[in-house]
């Protein structure tokens, strides 16, 4: 029995969810709103499971068309869903992790909207979250590059909306443009990538006369044989899209700022699902990439360089979410490098395990931040808001707002690791799940990250990509180090701020999803164990070019050893002698300027601003103010054209018409114009009549000529 006919419901369910909340949400309680949204996402997960089950019966791709889209000549695009092992894998990850995060968000947003004093925004959050699931499902479920693109930009929009969710403040809740700037930055950086995607799709259409996956892939070998440059161009323009969406060099800069969004958003969109869309895109386009090794090498190098570059920055961050953000960029680099090398199964494998453990880490970080906020709130009000927050009454809220504003002026940052310390005692559940996620990310045996990261490294090692291998191995070392640093700083030692001392554990609606993800982060490696290769065999049905990865013992031992060494060093620096309040980072004492470079993100943002953003602003200002307005509008039109015309009409009509008396009719009109012009010398008034006169003269003359000729 197969359920392929259910395919469109992966989109319909979340859309129904968001419509229900838009239309009826005003009357719902927060719990109902959250449950409706979670249910919508959960049903999409159920459908994904049914589709996956159907594929076990019938592993070939099934296409399901629900309507015509754009049909012009040879351009034939439909709304068609594609159910195959690759798309279904993504659907399972998106809706599975997505549903857990929906549930977590019920708890998280309940507190977040209270800390920020806008209860109405609770509903909006879940509408956006459902919209994201719908767009992401279109992205992974589409059967053509253009339908993929609809989802691709759709998730970009959701990212914009959710990064800018608290659009009137900064991350510390002070009135500011910061959050909305971050949102705008994300969308524009993505649009630059989308430009690449668009050009790639144009090239593709005129080469293959189709944008539908099967038709493109069938012709790929033939076109690659006759015109390899074309395929190289297509794949590299697609890569530009990948660098935007999956935050690779050079377009990665938006992702760290994206942490302005509420933490569930960081987990779902900016770690587990949306940012992996680029990896999915390369895997989906495997048939194109394998025909052009040069492009593959470039993709792999972009990924590997990003992996290392971002890992070094993560070392120098103090914000708990910023560390994770750079870590995400780095891990995406691993995946991109993997699929770039043609290790599609390894890349997808890492995508899945990363969704588990990075989703987990972000959500746990959210729990930490809430715990800190509770502690801080506790200090401020001497009345615990949590673990069971009650709705504030009208009067209280107004007062709270003012008080909060007062407290925030001293800018307490609940996400700053320098304020934390010792949280393992106050938030034990969060500590244990965080530790699980960190070990998985660091690649410690036998956690999920170990297996997937190792498969990428092994592929690089044995596939002859030695540069990629070394870059990734060093990045892996840094990964273990910065995670160690984070664990020691957050959970060990003594609290460096009173808020950390008063921090409280989160309620069950938050911790249960964390436990589920923690379990997945432990056992996720079983998906594609060496020798068993479940995932590889599953994807084989769709991606023909998958070769079973091999397990290289020396690679595994090297990376494990490096990870343990890195954790040990982090203990030496941050664990043995915990940081004290106000004390500088030990690395800063040791490496000075290098650490400052890491801390300041190697000044990439500053460089982009000086090189591109400010220049763009200058150019547009100059074009608008000087060229368009002063020169073209004011000088050329008003002075040259209007001025010349006024002069001409006065001179011509007065001299010739009056003095020589060509025609009484013209005489009269000339006189009239002259008077008009004399009386109303301003441009507005003299102009139109004399102009109309010229028109009349011209038309009469020409008509006369034509008729009498």
């Amino acid at each position, binding site marked *: 029995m197969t359920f392929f006919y259910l395919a469109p419901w992966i989109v319909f369910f979340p859309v129904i969810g968001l419509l229900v909340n838009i239309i009826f949400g005003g009357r719902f309680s927060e719990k109902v709103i959250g449950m409706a949204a979670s249910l919508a996402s959960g049903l999409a997960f159920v459908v994904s499971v049914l589709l996956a089950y159907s594929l076990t019966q019938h592993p070939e791709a099934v296409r399901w068309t629900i309507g015509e889209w754009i049909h012009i000549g040879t351009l034939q695009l439909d709304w068609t869903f594609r159910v195959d092992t690759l798309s279904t894998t993504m659907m399972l990850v998106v809706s599975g992790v997505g549903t857990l995060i929906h549930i977590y968000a019920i708890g998280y947003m309940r507190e977040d909207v209270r800390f920020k004093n806008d209860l109405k925004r609770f509903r909006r959050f879940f509408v956006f979250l459902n919209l994201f699931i719908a767009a992401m499902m279109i992205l992974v479920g589409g059967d053509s590059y253009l339908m993929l693109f609809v989802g691709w930009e759709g998730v970009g929009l959701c990212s914009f909306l959710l990064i800018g969710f608290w*659009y*009137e403040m900064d991350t510390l809740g002070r*009135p500011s443009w910061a959050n909305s700037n971050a949102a705008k930055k994300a969308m524009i950086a993505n649009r630059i990538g989308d430009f690449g995607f668009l050009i790639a799709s144009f090239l593709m*259409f005129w080469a293959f006369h189709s944008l539908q996956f099967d038709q493109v892939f069938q012709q790929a070998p033939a076109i690659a044989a006759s015109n390899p440059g074309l395929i190289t161009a297509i794949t590299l323009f697609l890569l530009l899209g990948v660098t935007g969406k999956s935050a690779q060099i050079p377009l990665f800069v938006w992702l760290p700022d994206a942490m302005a969004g509420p933490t569930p958003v960081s987990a779902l969109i900016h770690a587990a699902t949306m940012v992996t869309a680029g990896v999915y895109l390369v895997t989906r386009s495997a048939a194109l990439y394998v025909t052009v090794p040069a492009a593959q090498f470039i993709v792999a190098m972009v990924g590997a360089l990003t992996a290392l570059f971002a890992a070094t920055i993560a070392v120098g961050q103090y914000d708990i979410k910023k560390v994770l953000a750079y870590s995400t960029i780095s891990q995406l680099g691993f995946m991109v490098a993997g699929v770039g090398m043609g290790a599609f199964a390894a890349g997808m494998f890492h995508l899945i395990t990363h969704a588990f453990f990075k989703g987990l880490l972000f959500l746990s970080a959210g729990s930490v931040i809430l715990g800190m906020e509770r502690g801080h709130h506790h200090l401020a009000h001497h009345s615990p808001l949590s673990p069971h927050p009650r709705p504030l009454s009208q009067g209280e809220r107004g007062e709270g707002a003012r008080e909060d504003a007062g407290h925030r002026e001293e800018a307490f940052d609940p996400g700053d690791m320098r304020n934390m310390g010792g949280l393992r005692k106050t938030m034990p559940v969060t500590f244990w799940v965080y530790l699980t996620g960190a070990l998985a990310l660091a690649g410690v045996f036998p956690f999920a990250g170990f297996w997937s990261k190792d498969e990428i490294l092994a592929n690089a090692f044995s596939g002859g990509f030695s540069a990629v291998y070394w870059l990734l191995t060093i990045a892996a070392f840094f990964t273990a180090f910065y995670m160690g640093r984070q664990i020691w700083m957050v959970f060990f030692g003594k609290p460096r701020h009173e808020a950390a001392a008063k921090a409280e554990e989160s309620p069950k609606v938050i911790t249960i999803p964390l436990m589920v993800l923690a379990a997945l982060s432990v056992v996720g490696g079983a998906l594609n164990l060496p020798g068993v290769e479940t995932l590889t065999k599953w994807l084989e049905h769709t991606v023909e070019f998958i070769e079973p990865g091999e397990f290289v013992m020396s690679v595994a031992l090297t990376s494990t050893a490096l990870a343990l060494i890195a954790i040990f060093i982090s203990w030496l620096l941050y664990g043995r002698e915990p940081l004290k309040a106000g004390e500088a980072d030990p690395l800063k004492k040791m490496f000075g300027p290098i650490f400052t470079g890491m801390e300041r993100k190697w000044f990439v943002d500053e460089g982009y601003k000086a090189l591109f953003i400010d220049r*763009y602003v200058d150019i547009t200002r100059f074009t608008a103010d000087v060229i368009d307005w002063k020169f073209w*509008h004011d000088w050329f039109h008003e002075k040259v054209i209007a001025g010349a015309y006024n002069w001409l009409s006065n001179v011509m009509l007065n001299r010739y018409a009056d003095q020589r008396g060509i025609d009484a009719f013209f005489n009269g009109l000339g006189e009239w114009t002259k008077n008009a012009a004399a009386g109303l010398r301003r441009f507005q008034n003299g102009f139109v009549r004399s102009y109309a006169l010229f028109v009349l003269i011209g*038309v009469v003359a020409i008509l006369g000529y034509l008729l009498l000729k």
Partner: protein
Amino acid sequence: MEFILQPLTLMTFFPLLGVLVLLFIPGDKKNALRWTALIASLITFLISIWVLTMFNASNPDLQLVAKYNWITVAGWNIQYYLGIDGLSILLVLLTTFLSPISILSTWTAVEERVKEFLLFFLLLEVGMTGVFLAQDLFLFYIFWEFTLVPMYFLIGIWGGPRRIYAALKFFLYTMAGSILMLLAILWLGIYQGTFSVPDLIAKGGIDPHTQLWLFIAFAAAFAIKVPMWPLHSWLPDAHVEAPTAGSVILAGVLLKMGTYGFLRFNLTLFPQAAVQAAPVIAVLAVIGIIYGAAVSYAQADIKKLVAYSSVSHLGFVMLGLFALNPQGIQGGILQMINHGLSTGALFLLVGMIYEQTHTREFKVYGGLWKVTPIFGTIFLIVSLSSMGLPGLNGFVGEFTILLGAFGSTVLNSPWYAGFAALGVIMAAVYILYMFQKMFMGPEGSIVEEVRKHGHALRDLNWREIVTIVPLLIFIFWIGLYPAPFFHLMAPSVDKLTAAFQAAALAMR
């Protein structure tokens, strides 16, 4: 009676009945005047729906033709000749659709000389519909020039502080181009012996050199109207000074008269010249796209930003039309509609907030999403449509245009579309800037300013929602299911492109 009951004639001139009724209503009965005009334009819209039901989408030729000899003097034969086909039907519907919406938008915005305002408005509708239906060049010219007069007064009487200047500039600029077109029309009438467009197409045979001159003469009129870079200087003045309803119609319909003119006359009458001129037009279009987007971003006035964005958007339309292949032309026609919907909606929305704040300076705005959530959400959707977000209407048009231009055999270079695609990034920059500065960030000073005058900034009321929702429906409809729209135009466009293949062959 037979004459007036023909569907196209009836549709074109029905607003005159409204004018007639308006004349008998005293000027101080403002609501009666408004309802009369609204109903007249709504009935006109219903007539256009009736026309749509009679329209046979699979027939590429002119339909529902109304044809009479009109002026027959000295061997001249000027006809009253109306007809509709796939090139014009959507534009006619856009006109009849936007007119009642614009009238609804004036409900509280226009309080002075209501009668005259509505009178001019209905007259304008007659002219615009006529422009899209006329198949006789002389008749076309009359309708074309006729639209100038009501628009001149709409800007000049109900406009902003510099309205006289803007109205004159609009009038003269357009006239200047039209004169050249008139000459070309006269040339055709005399040397080809007819003003009828189908007859002229059938006759053909104008040598390429002459074609080029005639092409340029027609293009002069249309390029100013579009406006194509660098002839856009009248547009910001006209838009900034025009009342909201004027801006909606100006952006929504009047500019389309220019692009439609290219499509209907330049492409069909002078196919060889069109092939020759295509690269030049495409270059101007691409410059317009980039230039318009760059200049938009640097504006301090919301309405001016939207006005300059039209230069960019219509650059896309022109690029599509002169790709001279089915994707480009169909995309171009659809993009005319899209621009009418999304820019029309943007002007409506800007007008709605202006009515309350009396300022359009970005710097006083900010954080409005929290104050006026419905307004903010609708503004967001329309903005996204304008920047071409997939799933909304703008994307379908832009994508097909760029795709067509990229592979156009006439343009024969991917660079046009490549540079034009930069406009997609730049559109995101100025649109998001606009949305951010108005709706995100801390509360702008205007909120407090309005509060000081005794009443807080309010969200959209029911009338305003009714005004804007029809546009939103089409924004989603065209984005998700554009098939019916493409089906309406496809046969006529195919016929047109077939003629181009013939022309291109003839030139070899």
